[in-house]
């Protein structure tokens, strides 16, 4: 299988705090990878580095074999979709225009083509009937589904999710996870930073566990959840099971 994402020796510090210490990490085409770990372990920073929302201090990141630090950053970013914890829909646009804006301004599609595509993906996430509503009037789960549609409209090769359900209540978490499951089944390449252990166990092809800026353990979900090798992962999962 070809690698969509290849991360080699990635390092990142904020001031004196070393957040990522020599991260090596690959994602194959069509693979769904979840990244778990406690807050402050560097999961989100790693994800944000892949989309260059944070600039790595050293190391290289290849997307589709191309080094993202070289060449057109904006072209690279349009290929890598990102879904945020706080949704970040454009507040000054309707649901439809949220999905159209990037297509017409970045990909230079005609307005009609962009609108057709937007409707197609809004249908997929079950939000097409809200197309003409202002994005500020939606509930959290609805906003996140629109945010997913917005990213899909850019025909991204991989979709990054940065704790997509952490700002949602337990009921609406389900509606977003359903959409993500559907996308996973359709073969979309996804990297999901999440605290939803159920999603990590049931949907992902591979689970990556991070702690203190390093990848401690990675493997198939059944191995990670039933036979964790490292002590820190056992501790992390133990705490998670106690909570539930």
């Amino acid at each position: 299988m070809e690698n969509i994402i290849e991360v080699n020796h990635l390092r990142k510090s904020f001031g004196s705090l070393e957040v990522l210490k020599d991260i090596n990490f690959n994602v194959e085409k069509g693979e769904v990878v979840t990244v778990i770990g406690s807050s402050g372990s560097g999961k989100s920073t790693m994800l944000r580095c892949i989309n260059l929302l944070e600039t790595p201090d050293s190391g290289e990141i290849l997307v589709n074999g191309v080094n993202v630090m070289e060449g057109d950053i904006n072209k690279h970013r349009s290929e890598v979709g990102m879904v945020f914890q706080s949704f970040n829909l454009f507040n000054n646009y309707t649901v439809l225009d949220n999905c159209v804006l990037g297509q017409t301004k970045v990909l230079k599609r005609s307005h009609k083509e962009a609108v057709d595509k937007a409707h197609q993906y809004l249908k997929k996430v079950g939000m097409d009937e809200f197309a003409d509503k202002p994005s500020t009037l939606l509930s959290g789960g609805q906003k996140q589904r629109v945010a997913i549609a917005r990213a899909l409209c850019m025909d991204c090769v991989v979709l990054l999710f940065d704790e997509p359900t952490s700002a949602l209540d337990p009921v609406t978490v389900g509606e977003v996870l359903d959409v993500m499951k559907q996308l996973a089944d359709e073969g979309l390449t996804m990297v999901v930073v999440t605290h939803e252990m159920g999603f990590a166990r049931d949907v992902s092809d591979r689970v990556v566990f991070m702690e203190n800026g390093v990848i401690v353990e990675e493997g198939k979900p059944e191995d990670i959840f039933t036979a964790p090798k490292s002590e820190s992962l056992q501790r992390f999962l133990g705490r998670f099971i106690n909570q539930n």
Partner: protein
Amino acid sequence: MNLIEVISVTNPNMIVDAWNVFIKYKSLLLIGVRNTLIVALIGTLVGLLIGLVIGAIRAVTQNKEASDSAFIRIIKKIGYLITSIYVSIFRGTPMMVQAMFLFYALKPILNWNPISAACVIISINTGAYMAEIIRSGIQSVDRGQSEAARSIGMTSIQTMRYVILPQAIKNAFPSIGNEFIVNIKDSSVLSVIGFSELFWQAKSIAGSTFSTSEPFLVVAVMYFILTYATAMLLNYFEGRINHTKSSFPASQTVEDSTY
């Protein structure tokens, strides 16, 4: 002369006299109103344009990013310094002084008349205030908005134009409107360069009638009507901006959901 002054101070019929002044000099006063409104409107609109450009530059250059190269850092520093000088000077000196200095200093070169000078001076002055209003408006927009725009590949200029500035202007709308009201009043200082706005008309009426309080009472009422009507109008627009036409409570959308 002395007698007239004393009478005018203690004039028991001041309101009636003021009304008579208004009737007699109506056409002059209305020209004053027109000129005041023109200069206030031009000053606010052009000032807003200046403020959008300068304010955007200030917001961008103030924001230091780790990914900036040394060259970009220097450019940002210079950009911030230059705009700071502009804002500090025009906010830090009275518009009356700016008007006198610029009008006479540039007269040999531009050979301009008071009305065009007044428009230019009030625009530059308002621009300095608008720049700070827009800058704080931009900084009040959630950081996630620009991250989302950048994450789908929009350039920083596209992000500013299509996502950040529209929201910044909406947030700053009350302050922008306030500048218009301030300009209606403060344009009176432009009478010092002989621009015949409302205050200047009152002064010339006072000169020909030998009474001061009555024309200025008239003008005070006229200024108040102008600013009050403007405030009402701005309130109306503010309400329109904040209530989008398909307004409904967020909770309602959940029940409509197909999920």
